[in-house]
């Protein structure tokens, strides 16, 4: 834990992400994919599939998971872990929605080596 723990940045409105869809956030350490589920939960993950780096933001969102557009790995939005027989993990980031706005916890965004 560092002193930066509580830096929440307002990224935009919940409405800006389609339900069961995703949007990109550019950061100094690459792109993050911001997902919104059918039940309006939001999640933030590296936009990089653990398989061959496919852009997860372009996948189909179902339940709390996304299917990678390149070779159909299914990644849990909650844990970043590949589901089923596949093995791999994507970094997840703290994010929450409040009064229709999306707040992203920014302390780790600048440091690309800080893998969970």
């Amino acid at each position: 834990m560092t002193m930066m723990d509580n830096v929440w940045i307002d990224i935009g409105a919940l409405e800006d992400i389609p339900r069961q869809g995703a949007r990109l956030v550019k950061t100094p350490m690459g792109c993050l994919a911001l997902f919104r589920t059918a039940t309006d939960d939001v999640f933030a993950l590296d936009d990089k599939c653990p398989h061959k780096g496919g852009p997860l933001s372009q996948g189909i969102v179902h339940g709390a998971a996304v299917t990678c557009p390149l070779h159909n790995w299914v990644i849990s939005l909650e844990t970043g872990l590949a589901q089923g027989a596949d093995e791999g993990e994507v970094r997840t980031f703290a994010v929450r929605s409040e009064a229709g706005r999306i707040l992203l916890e920014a302390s780790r965004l600048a440091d690309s080596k800080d893998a969970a």
Partner: protein
Amino acid sequence: MKQKLVVVGNGMAPGRALERLFELAPGAFDVTIFNAEPRTNYDRILLSPVLSGEKQYEEIVIHGDAWYEENGLTLHKGKKVTEIGRAAKIVTAEDGTRAAYDKLLIATGSVPFIIPVPGKDLAGVLTYRDLDDVNAMLIAAEQGGHAVVIGGGLLGLEAAAGLKSRGMDVTVVHLMPTLMERQLDAAAGQLLKRELESRGIKVLTSASTREIKSTHPSLGPPRVRAVALDDGNEIKADIVVMAVGIRPNTALASDAGLKTGRGIQVTDRLLTSDPDIYAVGECVEFEGNVYGLVAPLYEQATIIAQELAGKPGNGFVDKALATRLKVTGVDLFSAGDFADGDDREEIVLRDATRGVYRRLVLKDDRIIGAVMFGDTSDSGWFFQMIKDAADIAEMRDSLIFGPAYAGGGQLDPTAAVAALPDEAEICGCNGVCKGRIVSAIAEKGLTSVDDVRAHTKASASCGTCTGLVEQLLALSLGDAYDPAAVKPMCGCTDLGHADVRRLIIAKNIKTIPDLMQELEWKSSSGCAKCRPALNYYLLSTWPGEYVDDSQSRFINERVHANIQKDGTYSVVPRMWGGITSANELRAIADVADKFAIPTVKCTGGQRIDLLGVKKEDLPAVWADLNAAGMVSGHAYGKSLRTVKTCVGTDWCRFGTQDSTGLGVRIEKFMWGSWTPAKVKMAVSGCPRNCAEATCKDVGVICVDSGYEIHFAGAAGLDIKGTEILCHVRTEDDAIEMIAALVQLYREQGHYLERIYKWLKRVGMGSVRAAVVEDDGRRKALFDAFVYSQKFSQSDPWAERATGGKDAHEFAPMADLSRMEAAE
């Protein structure tokens, strides 16, 4: 000289008799058939699924025109025989057509019984017997309104359920105290009534019709307005369906002086009182019995074929019959005799919470009757024991629970089937025995119930024996048969693609969330496999009405470009029929320069691919291409891809027709349409086939006399030459034929199933019957295609480049890249 066989009536019974005859004695007879209905032979049993929308007419055709041609039959469609001249051995039809016979087969079926109440002849009073009746009901149902079905037997209830699913307000009026009283006991009849009422069908029992009332003459030609009952009640009615029973159709035979009673009287060889005249089907009476189910008729058909072929076998015997109501979601089975009696005992199982009721009627330790409601999974097993008169004393205590428990030790449900002899009949409707199914499974490598249906006809009619067929598959294939592994669309459901397509129509489902609710999806919001399929099914079923769910589309279709391995996209503009111009090429070159597009490649589909475009540049790239008149090539879609052409008569010394022009026309007419899987076409100007039309989903080969329409080729994961659909004379005919074919595929194809796989599943007969042989159906398919194109032919690129659609796709939500490093 060949003997002349004339057949009067072209229903299910003679159709089967002829099939068997051609197997036993090919070419022995010159056959002429007269049919009062203006069509070939179809499966009358399956009219109910056609009425409810779960099947199309062409799926229930038994013999298409091609069959009659191949077997050298003369079929007089729409010609009713009015006279049999027994002395001269000639039959004469209404229009004067005559045919001489050596042997005559009468198969005139039944006529619906009309109760003699005032108003019975009014417009709007229908019967339920043939396709014309179904069409009349469908036309009436389009207006919505009220339907009254008189008669609560099998036919009446199937009609009621069908009309209900077509959106009508339906009341069943039944004379007796409980429904289907001839097949069900009172308890099951009551359960059935409750089930139908829960589906919104009103049921009046012990209700006698007094009069059918007419509209007021001032309102135009009189037609039905209401049904008045003896108790004084009046029920509003825009149509009335009379389904109170059938009578063997004996008029023609009795006019000719043949012996008739309730039906045309026959011997166990199906011979009438004239030694040259046979009769088969619902029109006959044998030992005082008449018939209304297809199983005994198919048995008669086999005997007729043996007699005509001069290879007589066993004579006809009257046997126990099983009935099943074909209303989706209502499981009901009845067989044998279940009246009460002093010498009889019964075993009853009731499970009120599950809505299950089972009753077995026993006599001398044998089952003589069975009624089941709610769970009919073991019906085949019980029915076999009735037919075999099997002694059940040993397993009596657990008998009612079915084969899994019967006799305590016998826990394997397939054990009962394993114990059956090879001659045991599995499919009553089609008279298929165990031995034939088992050997077909082994010899032809069958792995699914559908396979068995296609190869043996077992379970292809009423479906009662599906469970038995599944057990035979399990028995033959062991662990290799896993019905659950082949069928479901994905892990979110137990339903297969065909069921889902059918239920979307039958239950009038119009959104993905509704579908998941209605069909009890197991996951909260589906998965990446089922959602794109559902989106397509809804889109193609309800054009203009369904709102496309872009989040249920694969990324390529969502953003109208193909994703590449590095997350960039490729852009392929249309080049109609492979024709381009200096102007278009210049625009492509300019776009490649302006956006630093790394690769420009000629595709295998006669057009140019721009690869490596950044996602955020897509709208701008499209805007420039649009400005030069180019639109999306749908290289990314389950949709029409390319129509390849050759130069044809424009330039080529061998060209027979304007292949380039026709290709361009087809592409301009059909682009934008969504299909179950991608559709690629080609038009070649002569049989040298430079456009490779004979390996496409649809291909046209131009010839001097017109156009050969080919389809169902493959040149990707599988390699397969096309099949010929037909030959047409004009470009317009070719376009109508192709659009109708593609529309049929759009309506029937399973998601990701290419045309050649679809054809393999549904069979050439059904495709030809719909698209080539039935002018009305082809026109309707064509019109349906044209209608759906109204909603799909706007360029998706323009909508995004300048129309602002889906702007969120092409820009990041936030840019934090210049954020100061946090430490």
